[in-house]
């Protein structure tokens, strides 16, 4: 069974006064296997952020179901949604979304504290991942004291610390310079190789070329997908570029 299964997702936004409605997602179906590293690509307005919000249970689909590890997201009660996210999902955002009131360490602990874990246990978990992410020396610092790349690594640590079933990343390299982007992408790869499932939304070809599979979304439907297979990053990059060109020229499948 797949880890994540999205079936016939449809999302319609109504304008405020019930006038014209906009179909952000028409009919999206796909699956993500355990241990996969999937990128979703698309232009602005293609519906990829809407899709991610639905996968993250931040938003509800108008039609269709999302099943994560056998659990139907639409069946999760409203009051349990936050706890569900906390226990099952890890998030990495474009704008890092670190809280400036907390040190990096406390930012990383946040999901565990919310889950009511003991400090010793949290510390153990952090020690396990801090080395991998290269943030051991930064833990006592505050977000305003560190660079964007360091912030994003802390954000990845926050996503990883609750051992989520899947990491959802929304344009994780969007606010980073190219060097930090490269570092983050190799980090994602490393984490993925350790068995962590990752779903990343991006419009950076470079970022997507790291993934083991790339889904293309356009006008609310999955338009195409590419498997990396035995391709190198470079070859993958080329394939993605070609597909994007095709998309931009408005070609059909």
């Amino acid at each position, binding site marked *: 069974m797949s880890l994540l299964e999205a079936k016939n997702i449809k999302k319609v936004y109504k304008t405020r006064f019930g006038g014209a409605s906009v179909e952000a997602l028409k009919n999206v179906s796909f699956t993500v296997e355990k241990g996969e590293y999937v990128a979703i690509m698309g232009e602005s307005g293609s519906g990829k952020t809407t899709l991610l919000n639905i996968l993250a249970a931040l938003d509800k689909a108008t039609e269709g179901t999302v099943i994560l590890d056998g659990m139907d997201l639409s069946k999760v009660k409203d*009051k349990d949604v936050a706890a569900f996210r906390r226990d099952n*999902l890890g998030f990495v955002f474009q704008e890092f979304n670190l809280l400036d009131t907390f040190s990096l360490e406390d930012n990383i602990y946040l999901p565990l*504290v919310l889950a009511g874990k003991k400090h010793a246990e949290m510390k153990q978990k952090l020690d396990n991942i801090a080395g991998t992410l290269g943030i051991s020396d930064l833990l006592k610092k*505050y977000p305003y004291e560190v660079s964007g790349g360091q912030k994003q690594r802390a954000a990845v640590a926050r996503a990883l610390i609750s051992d989520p079933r899947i990491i959802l990343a929304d344009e994780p390299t969007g606010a980073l310079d190219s060097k930090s982007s490269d570092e983050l992408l190799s980090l994602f790869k490393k984490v993925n190789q350790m068995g962590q499932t990752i779903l990343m939304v991006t419009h950076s070809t470079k970022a997507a070329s790291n993934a083991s599979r790339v889904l293309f979304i356009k006008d609310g439907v999955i338009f195409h997908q590419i498997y990396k297979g035995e391709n190198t990053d470079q070859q993958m990059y080329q394939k993605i570029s070609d597909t994007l060109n095709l998309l931009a020229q408005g070609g059909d499948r």
Partner: protein
Amino acid sequence: MKTGFYPKMAVSGMRKNGRLYLPYIAACILMVAVFYIMHLLGYSEMLEGFEGAGTARDMLRLGTIVMAVFGTIFLFYTQATLIKGRLKEFGLYSVLGMSRKNLGKIIFYETIITWFVSVTGGTAIGIGLSKLAELAFRKMIGIGSSYKFIISGESILVTVIVYSLIFFLIFLNAARQVRFSRTINLINSDKAGEKPPKANWFIGILGLVILLSGYFLALKIEQPLSALAIFFIAVILTIIGTYLVLIAGSVVLCRLLQKNKKYYYKTNHFVSVSSMAYRMKRNGAGLASICILLTMILVMMSSTSALYINREESLRNHYPKQINCTASNYGFSESYGETAQKLMADINSKAEESGAEIRGSFYYASCFISGYFENGRMRLDIDPMTEMTTIDFDNVVQVYFLDLDDYNRLTGNNEVLSSGEVLAGVEGNIRFDDNITVGDETFKVKKKISCNQGDFRYVQSIMIVSTLFIVVDDLEEVAPLYTGYTDHFGNTMLAWEWHYSFDTDLDEDGQIKLNSQLREYIRDELYQEDFWGVRCESRAEQRNDFVRTFGGLFFLGILLSVIFLVSCVLIIYYKQISEGFEDQSRFGIMQKVGMTKENIRNSINSQMLTVFLIPIVVACIHLAVVLPIIHKLLKLFGHNNMPLLLACAGICVLICGIFYAAIYKITSNAYYKIVS
């Protein structure tokens, strides 16, 4: 650019920020209205033609000054908050091509609009409410209502001038803020100051030390006369201490809590402790201001209400009987006694002549001299009045000598003394043993006596300094021993006083009439040569003065409290709104990371409750520390009723607490709405 562009920008800017501007303008209007009313009552002829009008009006004039000063400070503070909230908007205008001068124009028109609305609205409401205020005031000070309605041009003019000046200053300050900032800073202004504060141990501890030394000074005060100067210092120290403690000390406390891993990493504490640590530095000043305002309200209301409620008892302490006559003179002469007896007989016959029957009465003669208590004895060679700067007022003692016969009559006791023996009692902070030395004479104390027994308690007048009572077997023997001491001017320091108080069967008008007859009789026909001074006072007549004074104070206390309370509300409101906007994104992030709605509610509750409780708890501590001093100061007004003062303080705390809780509820709802 088209004319009317800037006014339009100003109006639309204010309308868009209505949530911030409406309360501000409302507060301005209220302040102007109260200022007008105080000025009107204090300076116009509205309150005229009754006895004690001067006293009452003086108090309102004082209130006018307080209002002007407080208004300036408060409106400055509020305006600064408002402008801070709009810097981003100004930054955007600036990017779109507006110069600083253009922005200044917008601010100018905004200030003009606020000024116009506040001054016209405030004056209009002031005029409308002035009659009501006057009636309330007249009721409180116990005079009949008048049918005069006055609109005072002078008061309007003064109000307009004072508030125009205040608004002018506000405008300058706002223009300065916009002028001296760079566009990029304007745009990012709401992101500025994002650094969480470091715990500043030095300032935190310094604040605590200052606060405690203020408390210590305040608690050390024993006598009201010396209290006034020290009290002032204590107040200043306490205010500074409060600010430092709330600004720095609270951060230190939060950091300490954060160090405690077991406490800190709990779901409910984690978010609230860290954001409190983060925000205390900026909001400490606001909290301290709220705290000081609350303290002022509590102190003002509990003292003035206690004075007002207790006015009859204070009056009776001052004037034990319906008519009170006192004759006094320097030095001591045996003939004084005879003259006094004659005076009493004359007064009695005069009273009977006018048809009054004398009922309860008491009289006594006493000699008193002021001395300086040092090393267990009373020195008489220091004149406290001329050496004011070098001596400790706590050790100044007024020594009263009374005859045993008078003492026994006043108290109903039947004490017997042999020569050289005395009875002694003390009111104040000096101690004595078996022997007591006054000047060069040492007396053997046979017994210590209470100063509050029977009519004896009326012998001490107002306890400004410590009082020592020495009851001797024969006053005529002891008094001459002290006639040799003179003060700086060469006057004899020993004074002799004879006191006669009595009740009659007359009604109040009759008492006042009899009293003035006695006064005239004494003035015109008798005793001017025999005595340095003879005075007759009627309780009924003095009652008016007491009611005017205390009623005036109470009225002023209420008006100022209302203003202070409104200011508190506004500070809290702005705090909540601005924090709400700040926290919006923060709670957004936390929700994404897995914070449940319930978590949010709990953490907001715990955080806001703490933040809200701090000022009122600290204010109550301040009040508790200051109450003994208030009690001592109130003694100057003849108020000696601690239980009543405590009750008044308790009720004031309760009322303030309820009101405060209501504000908390309302503003935290506003906060919830913004955050979720």
